């Protein structure tokens, strides 16, 4: 699957590979299951939530999130809107955010990268996408 890279990587702070914590955000139950398994196979600790609102609630209480991977198309708060809120926050802006989407829309992709997304993955996401992404973003 294609991915579109942009910006510099902001990794965790010297955590061991096994302790790196990824927050996955997707309103689809099936996709949450799949992305969680892909990330856990790559040995990351994963928390999966079903909305941008829940993601922000968790980020408020859980400081140790090393990367956020979020679906673009979600009701109420899109992945782009979540990305903006993260990048506008002084506490959260250093966390790399990756967007996933089933639609290859160049204007959407560019908008996300310009807003500070680390990468943009096209769904269905595969293990090779996750491995390449995490090797680059989380060191």
């Amino acid at each position: 699957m294609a991915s579109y890279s942009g910006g510099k990587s902001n990794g965790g702070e010297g955590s061991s590979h096994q302790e790196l914590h990824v927050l996955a955000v997707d309103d689809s139950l099936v996709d949450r299951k799949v992305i969680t398994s892909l990330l856990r196979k790559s040995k990351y600790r994963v928390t999966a939530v079903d909305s941008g609102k829940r993601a922000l609630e968790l980020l408020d209480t859980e400081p140790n999130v090393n990367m956020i991977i979020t679906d673009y198309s979600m009701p109420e708060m899109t992945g782009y809107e979540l990305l903006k809120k993260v990048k506008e926050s002084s506490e959260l802006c250093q966390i790399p955010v990756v967007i996933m989407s089933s639609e290859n829309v160049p204007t959407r992709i560019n908008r996300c990268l310009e807003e500070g997304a680390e990468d943009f993955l096209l769904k269905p996401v595969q293990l090779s996408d996750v491995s390449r992404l995490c090797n680059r973003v989380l060191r």
Partner: protein
Amino acid sequence: MASAPFKAQLTDLLNSMFAMDFLDEQFKELQMLEEASGPGFLTEVVTLFCGDAERIISQLDALLNEPAVDFGKVDANVHQLKGSSSSVGAKRVALVCIKFRNVCQENDKEGCIAALHEIRHEFDELRKKFQTMLQLEQQIQDLDSK
């Protein structure tokens, strides 16, 4: 080994599902993930998908039976079904979803109803095959654990 005939049946079933485009390469990704995640992963994903698809198809049916169809909501539901079917490798269902979205974007109610019937047909066929697959996997697991 007692499970050998069931393993052969399962292999034949999966091969035919790939050959007839019920499944695509994404399903092979999930099979690889099962090897890492342990038995039960594929069962869980397939079961989640079938439940999700059934729910969405029912919602689409209700939406298309409204006197004034909200094509925005119809499109959102089809988009969701397309997403989850792509994620599990349910190729034929995903392809019909694309057709559905095209007629939906033209606000073509009759076209949407026809597309929904097609989705229902494709999903029913796939679900039967998934059920057979899961039954065979269970039989294999039971025999191999003895």
